[in-house]
Structures are given as structure tokens and as C-alpha cells.
């Protein structure tokens, strides 16, 4: 009996809708789902997002309520992760701190995307003087190291979580301008874009219909990885006292305080760092997984 040279397996989804499953986005999703480390990243990120969202309804103490009778208490049944130098519950501050960290990560990247992608599209698509000016400004901003730039901006804008997010967002913008510009340059030279121009489609329509969708995948990967960088940057700024201001909880400011009580209360320093590490690892794993899934060479 003749056997097929290559066994062909059709899963239920493909069998149900073979045309749909052949679409690139479905292929990417299927590949992404098989990426175990990306899935682990997704689980970590989802966990922290959920924690941040449900913080107000969790049965935990007020994160800013001081208790002078429970100053620097080791982990116990009453305070699972111990208390800090003002008797505040470390677990509660950790849970509420997730809001500040995730908010900073997402808002900073939204700012960077909001400025970076349009500017990159304009520079790449229109070229000429517009491109020269935008590109030179991008190079200038890229010349200043990310953290130094963020610290300088946060210092001049004034210490607060909002200003830290603005500072991180501005510092991260040049990467998105450069990435988008590069993508636009390669996509704009494609035959289908030339054809769209030839049939007289308007520039906004070409940008929206043909350029943007092809530019977005690598930008999405970069955005995911930049959320990780932004979370570390926010923690760094808060650690230096330039981000979230006391008494509001943030992982960076918790570490700043903890370093003064390493001998007496080491638990104060342990958990905020573990939380930053896990959430950043989650976004890095997600970003790596997305990059692999979206890489056409991997198909």
C-alpha cells in the first residue's frame, strides 16, 4: 500500500476553516502558542496584570497604613512577607506597587509609540529634508544613554510618577522612530506600494492600508521588550527618588528604603526585587517569543 512521503496532520481548527488557518496572523498565533518560554512569559505578565487590577478588592491591609506596633516584623501569618520600617504590610505594598510599575511600563511605551511611530513613518515615507531633520534629532537623542536621559528629564520635570513616565517615554521614542523609519523604507519600495501609488490611492490611505500593517509586527516586538526596559527604568527612577513619591508604594522606592535595613529586615529588599525580576522576565520572554513567531525565516 502506498504511503504518503510526508505525513500530513490536520488539526481541528484547520479542518474547520482551512482558509482562515492559512492566514499569516493565524500561522503566527499557532507558532506563538507552541513557544513554551513565550507562554511562560504570557503567564507571568497576566499574573501581574491581574494582581494589579484586583488589588483594591484583595483582602490585604492598606498599603500606606502605618503600624508602630509592627515595625520591621519578619514574615508571619499576620504579615506573609513581613512589614517595613513604618509597620506597613510588605505584601500589600508589593501588590499595589504592581500598579505603578505596570502603569509606568505601559504608559511610557504608549508615549514612545505615539510619537515614534508617526515620526518614523513620516521620515521613512516622505524622505528628503523631513527625513534628514527627524533622523538627525533621533541620532542626537540616541547619543545620550537611556537612563542618563531619563534621569535628566525626570530631574528637570520634577519627581513624580507621571513625570517619570514622560521622561522614560521620551527617552524610548528614538528607538521607535529609527525602527519604524527602517521598516517604512523597505516596505515603501515594494511593488504593491508602487502599484497603490500608480492607481492613484491617496497618501493617507497608502500609509494606513499598506505601510502601517507591515510596519507594526517588529514595532510590536520592540514595544513588548521596551515595556520590560521601562519597568526597570521606572524602578530605577523610583529607587533614586525621582519616580513614585512616598507614601505611595512602588517597587523601586521599596528597594530604596530596604537598602537601609539590610541587616535588620532583609525581607524588605527581597520581594520587590523578585517582583521586578519576574515581570521584566515575563515581558522579555513574551518579546522573544513574538519575535520568533513573527520572523518569516522561521516559518
Amino acid at each position, binding site marked *: 500500500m502506498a504511503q504518503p512521503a510526508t505525513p500530513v496532520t490536520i488539526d481541528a481548527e484547520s479542518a474547520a476553516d482551512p482558509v482562515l488557518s492559512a492566514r499569516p496572523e493565524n500561522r503566527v498565533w499557532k507558532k506563538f502558542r507552541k513557544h513554551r518560554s513565550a507562554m511562560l512569559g504570557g503567564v507571568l505578565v497576566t499574573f501581574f496584570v491581574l494582581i494589579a487590577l484586583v488589588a483594591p478588592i484583595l483582602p490585604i491591609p492598606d498599603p500606606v497604613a502605618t503600624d508602630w506596633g509592627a515595625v520591621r516584623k519578619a514574615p508571619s501569618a499576620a504579615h506573609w512577607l513581613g512589614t517595613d520600617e513604618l509597620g506597613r504590610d510588605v505584601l500589600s505594598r508589593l501588590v499595589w506597587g504592581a500598579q505603578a510599575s505596570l502603569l509606568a511600563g505601559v504608559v511610557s511605551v504608549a508615549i514612545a509609540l505615539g510619537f515614534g511611530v508617526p515620526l518614523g513613518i513620516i521620515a521613512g515615507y516622505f524622505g528628503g529634508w523631513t527625513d534628514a531633520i527627524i533622523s538627525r534629532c533621533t*541620532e542626537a537623542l540616541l*547619543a*545620550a*544613554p*537611556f537612563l542618563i536621559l531619563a534621569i535628566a528629564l525626570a*530631574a*528637570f520635570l520634577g519627581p513624580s510618577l507621571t513625570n517619570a513616565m514622560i521622561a522614560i517615554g521620551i527617552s524610548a521614542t528614538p528607538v521607535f522612530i529609527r525602527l519604524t523609519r527602517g521598516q517604512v523604507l523597505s516596505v515603501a519600495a515594494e511593488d504593491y506600494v508602487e502599484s497603490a501609488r500608480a492607481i492613484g490611492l491617496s497618501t493617507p490611505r497608502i500609509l494606513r492600508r499598506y505601510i502601517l500593517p507591515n510596519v507594526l509586527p517588529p514595532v510590536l516586538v520592540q514595544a513588548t521588550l521596551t515595556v520590560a526596559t521601562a519597568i526597570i527604568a521606572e*524602578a*530605577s527612577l523610583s529607587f533614586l527618588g525621582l519616580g513614585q513619591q512616598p507614601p505611595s508604594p512602588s517597587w523601586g522606592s521599596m528597594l530604596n528604603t530596604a537598602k537601609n535595613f539590610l541587616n535588620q529586615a532583609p525581607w524588605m*529588599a527581597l520581594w520587590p526585587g523578585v517582583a521586578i525580576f519576574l515581570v521584566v522576565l515575563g515581558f522579555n520572554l513574551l518579546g522573544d517569543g513574538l519575535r520568533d513567531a513573527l520572523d518569516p525565516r522561521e516559518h
Partner: protein
Amino acid sequence: MLSFILRRVVIAIPTIILISIFVFTLQKLLPGDPVLAMAGEERDPQVLEFLREKYRLNDPIPVQYFTWIGNALRGDLGISLRTNQPVLELIAQKLPVTIQLAAMAMIFALLIGIPAGIFSAVKKGTIVDYIANVVALSGLSIPNFWLGIMLILLVSVKWKLLPASGYVPLSEDPVRSITVMIMPAFVLGTALAATLMRHTRSAMLGVLNSDYVRTARAKGLVERRVILKHAFRNALTPIVTLTALLFGELIAGAVLTEQIFTIPGFGKLVVDAVFNRDYAVVQGIVLVTAVGFIFMNLLADVAYVLLNPRLRKQ
């Protein structure tokens, strides 16, 4: 080669001008009247006017910029409000400390990152490769200030092996200087080692699949020689370029490391300046770092050409 370097220097000039405009604009972001900040408690209008005249704040903004950049080109970046010292002098005092820290961090990163990258590429798809990747990604995800705190807790507080903080100049006592710097350099070098490992792995994987490596193996060369002489030498070009670029990142990364280990370097200077509202120092640091970064970029480009025989001939 000389014309290539000159061309790169010329290309860098507009970037430096734009950075200077950006750094100058930073000061204009300050809320309120800068003279009021300088005068402190003093509210006498005559004093305020005197300060305005002295710092030429009544001039139009473009004139103020040209005065500032003219002074900067002559090495005058202003005076620190806190120490009353010239900013450039302050930076020159602190920079060697940070360069020592960054150089030691770079040595750690190279010693860990490159062998791990080579090993991971050679053992691609094995458990060794998987572990190396997990460790590298963890290295990228650990906030270095937390790693510093944890190491102080374990190595200094619990085991009492290394000092938790401080600085001894290299010229004073080299052994003590290096001993004190080991922990901060390791902390600063961790993320860099992870980045280098990932890039070395990727560069090696590209080279290991090439025809000349296959030919070297077909000639019967020992695998070690194939990897180190044929593959690694060709994978080295992007790694050297990256190393030059990352040195600038190290200077920036030193900000937090110096803060944790109380090292009186460039990073501590910027943090102190920020908290003392010593904006001339902050501006000076951003400008000097950015120009240094451009210089490292230039070095990276030159190294790239020097290491690549085909580009060298062009």
C-alpha cells in the same frame, strides 16, 4: 582610513549641535524663574535683576544658547551651585572612578559573555544551550541595583567576604582598589554579559553554518581549532563593535551601581546634582556623556572597518 574617520567626524558634528540644543533646552523646562531658584531666600528685585544680567537671562533665547555653547566649547560648562567648582573640573575628578568601574565591569562581561555565547552556539539545541539562554535572559531581567543589594546582603553582611561600599584610588592601593570594586563591577557587568552572550551566540551560529567552516572541518581540523580560529575570528567583528557601543551604556549604568555601593564617581555626581537642583552639573553630565557616546560610536565604526578586510580595502 583617515578620510573615513574624518567623514565620520563631520557626520557627528550636526548630532553634537543637536544634543547641545537639547541640553540647553532642558534648563528651559524648569518651572518658574531660574533666578528665584538661584537667589534662594533673597527676594530683593535689585539682586534678582543683577543675577539676570550676570547670567545674561535677559538676552533672547538664541543669544543665550550661543553664549552657553561658546563657553562650553572653551571648556566652561558653568559653576556647580553646590560646590562652587567648575562643572568640567568636577566631571574630570569623578570620571576616572567610573571608568575604572566600567572597565572592570567590561572585563567581567567579556569573560562571562563570550565563552558562554560560543559554548551555547556550539551546543545549539542541547540542555547547555537552553540553560545558557535562560541565564542570559535572567541577567537581562534582573535590576542591577537589586542584584547589588542582594550581593551586599550575602557577600558583605552575612559572609563578610568583601566590603559593602567605598572606594580606594587605583594609584593609592591597587589591590585594595580592585578588591573594593569587584562586587560593583560584577553587578554592572551582569546585564552586559547577558547581552554579549546573546550576540556572540547569534554571530557564532551565523558563522558556524558558513562554507569556510564546513571546509575547515572537511580538511580534518580539530573542532577546537575550527571554532576558535575559523569561526570565532569571523564572528568577532560584530562583537567588538557591540563592546565599544556598550561601554557607553556602562557609564550610564554606573549611576545606580555607584549609588548602592557609595562609589564617588560620575553616577553619584549626577544623582547628587539632581537632588541639590545643581542643574549646570546635570546639563554638563548629559552633554559630556552624549559626546563620549558619539566618540565610542566612532571607535566602533573604525574597529568594524579595521577588523573587516573587505571594508578596509574599500
